[in-house]
């Protein structure tokens, strides 16, 4: 029998499902992970990443000491491995980092900083990060990878409903009646949700409609698969709405009592017939009609979506066209309904909740609202800027224009995750200072000046907020590697030192002694969090916000009575086709995404057993296209766009439709983002990761 030194309950560090884990520790290593059967949201289930993928925590390349670039301030910034850095004491590294931050601040002010907080770090880490940026650096130039994933869902849902979170809980999924999955390869990106959705179909007889260009695994249990041409989502959803209005399938009572703008919206649908949508999207008109009737005819129907909807130059419109459907049919505010963007990172919901965005304080409170500004100024005892900051890609632009000279990056990897990689690298090279806080030296860290070693999820305490707004605890299971420290401790030290260097008299309040204390300050400022504390989460295993008071039970599904903006607002939308189109030179459309065994920039999964089963990138291509191009399965091919080219192994599969290629973006050696473009949605500023025109050639 295996004996464990200890078993520690925690929350999975990978995706937004937020599975509850028990980490089994022996000799300071996680040797296995199990799941408590009685705890939401996963009720005893795990996927391969949570079960076997937390071994990166004891990988030999973990950062254990602060590092300082050997040739600082060289004329050209080049990427370097660990050999290019020297080890330093915390004292020296923090002092140097603070000195350089103060120097930039004195020369150019707060707007010279671009900062990335982290959707993998805790709510408490992110709260401290944004407090540091706003109160010490005096800027709102703070953003994180949510910009690259659900920014368009946030923008669309905010316009339609006034709120951006997933509306219904994961626990409802197995009892669904009808649901749509669109732009989400659920079984690979949210595997445990994938099992809950399959259970609804197999055991509850639920009807599933998959709307996705790729033949993803979820189509195996779908009633209907609408395989639209990439980028034509709006046409499909508008035509579904057309059918629902024309056939009087809409929910008149709901529209009257809970929505506004129906009359002009319904008129705007006249021209968007299924026949028209068939021409645009290549989906048969009768299938669009069937989908509309199934969705509208259900007592309760839910919509789940992922990056396929949001990572688009029309991402906001895509979201609005989905929201219109739910408003038409009244599929909101009840069990088994809802508008549900499946959040990617373990704490991307929480990082946004904790103020990791350029336009809002924690709790989505607008930076330009004078009353809110006054509240935060009072708490932090500092004047604060009412000017919204720059988003990720705008920060990159601002390096080009000379406004931003310094990057501060906590746990993100923009080189891998941003579109148009050569452009991103060009900008990194132009920066004067790059300060990095991370657990590994990743592709972006290699450009850094000072690297501060942080703790992984398994070594610290704090909270993650999962996709259905459930705030859950992580607990220390392993000893800190070497001298690594928790992000919040590093940032607190840094904040104090920068304030000293700038000879500021009063303190903004960086005197926290535990993450629980940090949470309490945030809960004090955010009405929706007021009833939540670490102690309560410990007792109840998790609490869904909004939770305005200690006697409030938390809110598994939203919008029961009303929407945050009052009434749900219909939006008339026109189909736009502004993405890159396939052309003579670049005849294929490239879509990018993830696979089951890897995570984003692969900083974690390349250092895990997970890498052994999926060690390198592949490009997926339809058999007919491969035959046309004379390419064989598993041979190396070169895929190129006008922005770059990569060599990658060919995988022939009918998962990809004709004319569409798919490459996962995890692999630095075959980085899909060398091919993607930085064209972006005008409202959400999210890039168009899913559509690039490419060609494919024999190597």
């Amino acid at each position: 029998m295996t004996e464990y030194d200890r078993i520690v309950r925690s929350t999975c560090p990978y995706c937004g499902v937020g599975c509850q884990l028990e980490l089994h520790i022996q000799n300071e290593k996680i040797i296995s992970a199990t799941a408590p059967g009685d705890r939401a949201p996963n009720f005893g289930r795990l996927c391969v990443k949570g079960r076997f993928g937390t071994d990166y925590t004891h990988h030999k390349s973990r950062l254990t000491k602060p590092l300082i670039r050997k040739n600082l301030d060289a004329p050209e910034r080049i990427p370097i491995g660990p050999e290019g850095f020297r080890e330093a004491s915390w004292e020296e590294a923090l002092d140097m980092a603070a000195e350089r931050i103060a120097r930039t601040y004195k020369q150019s002010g707060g707007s010279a900083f671009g900062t990335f907080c982290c959707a993998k770090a805790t709510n408490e880490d992110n709260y401290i990060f944004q407090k540091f940026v706003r109160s010490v650096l005096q800027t709102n130039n703070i953003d994180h990878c949510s910009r690259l994933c659900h920014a368009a869902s946030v923008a669309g849902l905010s316009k339609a409903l006034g709120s951006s979170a997933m509306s219904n809980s994961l626990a409802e999924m197995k009892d669904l009646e009808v649901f749509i999955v669109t732009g989400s390869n659920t079984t690979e990106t949210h595997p445990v949700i994938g099992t809950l959705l399959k259970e609804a179909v197999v055991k509850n007889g639920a009807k599933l409609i998959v709307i996705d260009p790729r033949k993803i695994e979820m189509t195996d249990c779908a009633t209907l698969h609408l395989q639209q041409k990439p980028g034509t989502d709006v046409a499909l959803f508008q035509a579904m709405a057309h059918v629902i209005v024309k056939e009087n399938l809409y929910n008149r009572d709901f529209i009257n009592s809970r929505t506004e703008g129906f009359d002009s919206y319904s008129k705007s649908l006249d021209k968007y017939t299924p026949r028209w949508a068939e021409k645009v999207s290549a989906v048969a008109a009768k299938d669009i009609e069937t989908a509309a009737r199934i969705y509208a005819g259900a007592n309760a129907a839910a919509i789940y979506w992922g990056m396929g909807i949001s990572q688009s130059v029309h991402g906001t419109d895509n979201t609005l066209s989905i929201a219109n459907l739910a408003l038409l049919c009244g599929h909101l505010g009840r069990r088994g309904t809802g508008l549900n963007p499946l959040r990617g990172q373990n704490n991307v919901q929480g990082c946004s909740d904790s103020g990791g965005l350029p336009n809002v304080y924690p709790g989505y409170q607008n930076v330009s609202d004078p009353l809110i500004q006054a509240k935060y100024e009072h708490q932090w005892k500092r004047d604060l800027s009412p000017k919204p900051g720059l988003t990720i890609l705008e920060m990159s632009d601002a390096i080009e224009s000379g406004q931003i000279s310094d990057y501060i990056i906590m746990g993100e990897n923009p080189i891998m995750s941003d579109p148009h990689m050569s452009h991103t690298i060009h900008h990194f090279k132009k920066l004067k200072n790059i300060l990095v806080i991370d657990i590994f030296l990743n592709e972006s860290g290699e450009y850094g000046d000072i690297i501060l070693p942080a703790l992984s999820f398994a070594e610290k305490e704090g909270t993650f907020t999962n996709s259905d707004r459930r705030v859950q605890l992580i607990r220390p299971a392993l000893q800190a590697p070497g001298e690594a420290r928790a992000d919040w401790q590093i940032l607190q030290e840094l904040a104090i030192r920068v304030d000293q260097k700038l000879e500021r008299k009063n303190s903004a309040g960086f005197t926290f002694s535990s993450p629980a204390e940090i949470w309490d300050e945030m809960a004090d400022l955010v009405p929706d969090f007021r009833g939540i504390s670490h102690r309560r989460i410990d007792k109840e295993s998790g609490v869904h916000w909004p939770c305005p008071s200690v006697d409030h039970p938390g809110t598994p599904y939203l919008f029961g009575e009303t929407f945050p903006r009052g009434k749900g607002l219909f939006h008339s939308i026109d189909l736009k086709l502004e993405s890159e189109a396939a052309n003579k030179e670049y005849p294929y459309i490239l879509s990018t995404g993830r696979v089951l065994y890897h995570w984003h920039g692969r900083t974690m999964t390349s250092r895990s057993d997970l890498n052994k089963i999926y060690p390198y990138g592949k490009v997926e291509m339809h058999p007919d296209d491969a035959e046309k191009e004379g390419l064989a399965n598993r041979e190396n091919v070169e895929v190129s766009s006008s922005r770059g080219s990569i060599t990658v192994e060919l995988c022939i599969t009918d998962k990809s439709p004709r004319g569409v290629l798919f490459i996962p973006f995890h692999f630095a050696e075959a980085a899909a983002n060398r091919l993607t473009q930085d064209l972006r949605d005008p409202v959400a500023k999210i890039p168009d990761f899913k559509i690039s025109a490419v060609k494919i050639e024999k190597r």
Partner: protein
Amino acid sequence: MIKLYINEKEVVCHEGTTILQAAESAGIIIPKICYHEKLTPPGLCRQCVVEVEGARVLLPSCITGVREGMKVQTDSPRVKRVRKTILEMLDNCTDLSEAPELQIQMKKYGVENGRFRDTVKRDYPVKDDNPFYIRDYSKCIVCGRCVQVCSEDIQFSYALTTGGRGFENRITTNFDKPLPETSCVFCGNCIEVCPSGALVSRREYSATGEAND
């Protein structure tokens, strides 16, 4: 509501309840092997059998529904003898060293070694075909929990199945393929329910000194 008697104790429960559930609700513990509270009861191992008045044979309590006025004995001499025999048969052909629950039951029912002569222990080579977990079917009692988890009780992957008959009955994959060539997604939910240590995460297996990483 239905009223029945378990070990002479009056128990009241809803229609559709199994004898096992009814007994547990009354604080009467019935031993079991293949049964797992999160899974559909397969009624395979027969360790949970009980004596019901008027019934010809012992009935598996995990899949037998309660009936009005039923008289149930969960620990009669006949029941005890059957449980002991089941454990002895398992012990004779399987390595139960990593099955803590069964060890406890063997002690309780006074399992004797050597009552069955000429038996053969199952001795399969350890299946080590993927980066995540090993399958040591010499320790497998073929309770089928892993197959259930892999199919419609949790994962809907259908990678694991049963194969062979009689003594050759075992857990396998379609066409005996290595796991990476099947629909397995390595969720490891099967490891979680294995009662006898046949499925073990590779890191844990290495930690016990039986294999190298």
